[in-house]
């Protein structure tokens, strides 16, 4: 048993809003009549479509082939017919990207053989299309084949975003599977230690995971963490647990660590032990704009509208719908957009007034909460003066977009927003 305070510098302790859904069991939503599946649901190159218009596909059948050195394949989440392959708006990037619409045949018949016989574990994880389900959607197989030896696997059960309880419920309901998934990944990595990090107020998850760990998982270390956002962020979690800092421009394996989310571990378990590619995930549907907040297991590609209807529909008139958590999630323009692999939650708010922005009074709160050690107000003023290159070099390039600065600002200045816009601008510029 290992007790640790979260020791990364900065951060905030926002109100949790988790009580609504933390005690509710995961409900499985029946397969929808139609899914919209994007070929780019992960960090890296989009998958290459291998289906044509009119093709019949089964649940779990591969419809997109791995599209590059950092990429994963994409699978159909229902059985039916490919109705359309076109560019559709993506709920995360906000841009149009290649997607296909599959209409259900109502049978939900599974694809008979997901994986070739004799495949090694890493190939199964790769073929299953598993990505980091915490929100970053980085291909898991890439993380599991580091160029340097990794001694420590951190199983990340720190769900630091308010409202979200999908990770918590997964740990409560499937602790054995989660731990087995972690063990599979540790084996692939040849990691010696698995650290299970859970926030201290997540009592039930801690209890269930420890209970499960007693049955044959002796090499686990449990770390009960003080609640603080953004603890679930890889770099902050590593700093808190191991007092190691990932050098700028490097990745966790450079300090001998691999961090994996608990739902990712569950997906790995299901792929390796249950022959099931990643075509569904648990999301939290919450906020004051939905009738019955719930944790739902949904098929990837389900239109968000359908998910909300499944949760009793809207409560009042929705003003804002967010994919992800309230601190880093994306507000979407239309509920017709689908759930993707990176969707950890759907939050519906019936009020979304934007506060008026006042002048910066230099109170220093943004400096105090920045987990990276930036001076957000200074960078903001550089951007305002159009000194974009300088702003980038003086810190925006290191910004992890956690939003602590904007959360804490008493003048309600859109700090992180301006950094994100600069990131977006540079990304677009570099791409074109």
């Amino acid at each position, binding site marked *: 048993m290992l007790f640790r305070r979260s020791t990364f510098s900065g951060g905030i302790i926002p109100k949790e809003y988790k009580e609504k859904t933390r005690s509710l069991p995961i409900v499985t939503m029946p397969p929808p009549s139609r899914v919209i599946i994007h070929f780019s649901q992960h960090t890296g190159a989009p998958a290459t479509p291998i289906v044509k218009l009119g093709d019949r596909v089964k649940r779990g059948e591969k419809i997109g082939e791995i599209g590059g050195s950092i990429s994963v394949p994409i699978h159909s989440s229902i059985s039916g017919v490919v109705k359309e392959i076109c560019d559709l708006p993506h709920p995360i990037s906000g841009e149009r990207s290649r997607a296909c619409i599959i209409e259900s045949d109502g049978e939900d018949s599974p694809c008979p053989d997901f994986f070739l016989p004799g495949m090694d574990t890493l190939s199964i994880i790769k073929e299953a299309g598993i990505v980091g389900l915490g929100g970053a959607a980085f291909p898991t197989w890439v993380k599991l084949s580091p160029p340097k030896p990794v001694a420590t696997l951190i199983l990340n059960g720190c769900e630091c975003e308010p409202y979200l309880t999908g990770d918590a419920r997964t740990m409560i309901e499937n602790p054995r599977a989660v731990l087995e998934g972690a063990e599979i990944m540790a084996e692939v990595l040849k990691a010696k230690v698995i650290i299970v990090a859970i926030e201290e107020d997540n009592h039930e998850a801690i209890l269930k995971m420890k209970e499960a760990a007693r049955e044959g998982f002796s090499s686990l270390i449990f770390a009960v963490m003080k609640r603080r956002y953004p603890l679930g962020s890889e*770099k902050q979690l590593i700093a808190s647990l191991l007092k190691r800092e990932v050098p700028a421009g490097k990745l966790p394996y450079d300090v001998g660590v691999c961090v994996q989310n608990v739902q990712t571990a569950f997906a790995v378990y299901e792929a390796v032990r249950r022959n099931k590619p990643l075509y569904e995930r648990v999301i939290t549907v919450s906020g004051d704009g939905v009738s019955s907040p719930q944790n739902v297991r949904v098929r990837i590609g389900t239109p968000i509208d359908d998910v909300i209807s499944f949760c009793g529909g809207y409560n009042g008139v929705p003003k804002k719908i*967010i994919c992800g958590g309230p601190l880093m*999630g994306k507000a979407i*323009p239309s509920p017709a957009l689908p759930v993707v692999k990176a969707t950890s939650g759907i939050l519906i708010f019936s009020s979304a007034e934007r506060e008026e922005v006042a002048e*910066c009074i*230099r109170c220093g709160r943004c400096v105090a909460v920045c987990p990276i050690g*930036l001076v957000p107000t200074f960078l903001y003023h550089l951007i305002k003066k159009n000194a974009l290159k300088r702003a980038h070099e003086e*810190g925006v390039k290191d910004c992890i977009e956690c939003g602590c600065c904007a959360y804490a600002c008493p003048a*309600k200045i859109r700090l992180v927003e301006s950094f994100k816009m600069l990131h977006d601008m540079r990304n677009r510029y570099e791409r074109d």
Partner: protein
Amino acid sequence: MNETEVLIVSYAPHIRDRITVEKLMWSVVIALLPALVGAVYFFGLRVLMIIFLSVASSVIFEFLAQKSFGRKVTIYDGSALITGLLLGFNLPPACPYFLPVAGSAFAVVIVKHFFGGLGYNFVNPALAARAFLVVSWPSFMTKGFIPPRFGSLSGIDALTQATPLTLIKDTKTLSPTALAEVIDKLNSCDAIRNLFFGNVGGCLGETSALLLLIGAIFLLLSKVIDYRIPLSYLGTVFLISLINFLFVKPQPSPLFHLFSGGLILGAFFMATDYVTTPITPKGRVIFGVGCGLITMLIRLFGGYPEGVSYSILFMNIMTPLIERWTKPRVYGY
């Protein structure tokens, strides 16, 4: 969903802390109230008139300046109110009534709005105005002190001609034995007690350390101000005066230095002004130490009896430089 309803799309974060600029400013106003009540108690109702004039004129000048510069009128944010309050606190109780009005005009129009308004002034408006008044009307600013209702100007019954810090300056002309006698009295329990409770002459808001500390504790606990500047400021003053007390005889004690003059008011309410002090944690420590050093330099060796306001003004000017030196280390470098 109704087709006519439009969803709001904005960048994260979608939730915000409830703190606002107004809440911060009004907290400071509330924290200054105990000392204001004390000032009325010690120096009479005249204090109310001075404070009323400085506050009202500050707010009016803010309104006029914002109107004439075409800025958004923000007189309800409490910022001008604080400037008026602090300026009033820095005036002698017997000063003429035009002084707070002239001071407010200088603080709000010249120091604050000529340099860009809230968030852009580079020195503390109330302190700059005080410096302006000291230079422009020195006699009103140095001779307007009156004894508190139940005590004497110096806080010692036998000596009544000056405030404690002025007394020390004047004693330099005294014979060594007379000097030792005065210092002894200033270090006595009675004198320190009078300083702590405020039963002593001085600017109207600075005399009672106790009442100022009550407000300061409220600001620290509610996280309106950071502990770094006051702690390093008072710590530096304490250390220097302790060394001075131990190795140079006869000298006033560290407690005398902590509770006399405007140190408590300055350290908790003016050296913590957001706009004119560093935003970096390390910078704040340097700022406080610098204030403490300069305060003690002026008190021990300078021509003025008190150095708090000039030390803070000087460090205000150093703030951009300090910030550049003390940028936090960025994760991963």
